[in-house]
């Protein structure tokens, strides 16, 4: 987080909430009522490394002005907990045929059945 963002948060930030991962969300304290179209700036202070995919869906909607308030987290039974992008970590996706995933790929053209005595 840059010094600028920290300073902005300190001087003009209004704390809105915190998600399950510990990321904190702020918006501008100033309300410019003279301009009815003015939208208050919204931002996130990440916990740990700054990484866009850490923002869960419910806060994503608020952050991008889709909603005025954050959505209810996990309001439906089928909703999965949010996972950030796992690329480069051990949890990264590997296709079925990859050795790390067992190495059994689906049959494809070019396969042959070898003779074994």
């Amino acid at each position, binding site marked *: 987080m840059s010094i600028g963002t920290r300073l902005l948060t300190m001087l003009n930030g209004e704390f809105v909430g915190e998600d399950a991962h510990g990321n904190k969300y702020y918006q501008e304290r100033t309300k410019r009522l003279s301009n009815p179209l003015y939208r208050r700036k919204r931002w996130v202070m990440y916990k740990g490394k700054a990484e866009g995919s850490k923002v869960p869906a419910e806060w994503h909607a608020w952050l991008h002005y889709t909603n005025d308030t954050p959505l209810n987290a996990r309001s439906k039974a089928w909703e999965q907990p949010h996972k950030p992008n796992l690329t480069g970590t051990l949890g990264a996706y590997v296709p079925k045929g990859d050795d790390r995933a067992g190495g059994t790929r689906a049959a494809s*053209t*070019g396969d*042959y*059945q070898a*003779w074994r*005595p």
Partner: protein
Amino acid sequence: MPKLTIDGIEVEVPAGTTVLQAAEILGIEIPRFCYHERLSIAGNCRMCLVEVKPGPPKPAASCAMPVAEGMDVRTDSEMARKARKGVMEFLLINHPLDCPICDQGGECDLQDEAMTFGNDHSRYGEMKRSVTEKEMGPLVKTAMTRCIHCTRCVRFTTEVAGVPEMGMLGRGEHAEITTYLEQALDSELSGNVVDLCPVGALTSRPYAFTARPWELRKTESIDVLDALGTNVRIDVRSGQVLRILPRLNEAVNEEWLADKSRHAMDGLRQQRLDTPYVRKDGQLVPASWEEAFAAIRAKVAGLDGSRIAAIAGDQADCEAMTALKDLMGVLGSTNLDCRQDGAKLDPTVRAGYLFNSTVEGIESADALLLVGSDPRWEAPVLNARIRKRYLAGGFKAGRIGPAGRDLTYPVEELGVDPSVLIEIAEGRHPFAEVLKAAKTPMIILGMGALTRTDGAAILAAARKVADTTGMVTEGWNGFSVLHTAAARVGGLDLGFVPGSGGLDTRGIQAGCASGAVEVLYLLGADEIDTNALGKAFVIYQGSHGDAGAHRADVILPGLAYTEKEATYVNTEGRPQRTKVAGFGPGEAKEDWKIIRALSGALDKTLPLDSVHQVRARMAEINPVLGTMNAVTPAAWEAFGTEGPVDTAAFTTAIANYYMTCPISRASPTMAECTRVFINGNQERTGTDG
């Protein structure tokens, strides 16, 4: 020669030509569905409508209209276009328009023509007619709702294949193309109806829903599953052969392909040898090339040449046989044979083992004597040529050999044993008169007659028949040997036969059993009795784990014919070359390279470092192998040994058409064909189709 104008261009063509053919000469393509140059003219699709003047003011079907003097034909006039649009609209009334799920998509005549003459919408709101699928056996899949009733398939099966098993039942909207008894098409040429069908009504069952034509890489090659050397196109995706289609060659196969050659290619993925093996303590274990060569070296080093032998199989290519012959030469062995079936062919006289009349020549023969041969199974496409000749009229055929199988043309059954042949040779048999009276008589001598122990005497008797009935004249040689193996003529041309004092196939087998031969090299030879090889050290080089591999002590994995560029000589003596369509499995290598590498490991390095050197060596052994795709006529010299003949009846060379080589034996499709056609098991289980 009538003169006519087509689209303003004047052309003179022989009388009897149709307008469609005349336009083709000019390079003007008239759309057509039912017309096919090798079938009779039906004139029932009406797609080929053109405007013809003078005449009634209506469009005329150009495929069925003979040209006349002074005709003025318009193929692209407003009237012709409108007429074709109308025809297309009619054709599509009941067509399901299911291109996305149709196997013909991308190579469909109807699809193509609809791009030009189709409407963007239909004017019919009624339900489409639907037709149930017809059972046509394990090779042809039907979707009869798509049929446009061009009757090409009916005409093909009746005229070319000679099995009148298909027809059109009903009329008008209720017309349906069907096999009358809803049974598998009993023809070895049935796959061709799939090529002929202009729409997706008849498609290939084994190939169903596998690929689209634009995904395939096409390679023009040669088929080696019978001795005819059919020209084929091999369609490959990701290195896997997905289908094989015929290629046009008027001199060999016209545009037909036999079912085994077309559908056995799924055997190329089964039972493949993909790594060398060495037998250790009675068990074959995977090994590296070095280990395999070391095992051979340990056995061969210091061994006298006379105790080493080699047999080349039915699909051995000329390059490999050249290398192996030279290797046996430097090892000092003369025990080599390319006739694994033990045929008593005389390798010294080329005319004595060729199909001298040539395949095209069949069409000018007027009498035919079949001896111990069943061309319908041994070379189905060649048999179609004989039928074509029969249909042209003025042709008489006789057969010595097992009666029973319908050859698709009438044959006079002359007897089953060689005594009849002797009688004809001595002029004591009425059929001798038939042959003498004929201007261009021919004899087809099959392997059923030559693989017997008295084969040499039968060869001599057949030669005598040829001599006494005037089969060999200036410009005509009717003496024809029909081989069953693609490698045979090439092997004989290369002299892959016993040298002086050498053993032939039978001698080698006896030698192995008795211990006189200690090392046996099998170059793809699986059709010999591998259980009777005694204690011999067997080296098997080939592509499939078949009989030879089971018996082998060292296995060297070679390539199949779709994976190497190799020369094969067909039964007429026409050298042709296959092309690389896909790569071989695992460690498998090109066959001549294996032998060359082995010669290095044995410290007897052959001077064959590139394929050019191998081919140069081939041409040095026999100059005929230097000219590709051409038949070099052979001089008529003395061959065969006269002697007493057995009275035993001839047998057929092939017991099961669908399984004759390691590839077809490994093929699931061929196994299914065997179940249906050979074992007569027509019922399909609930799960298939």
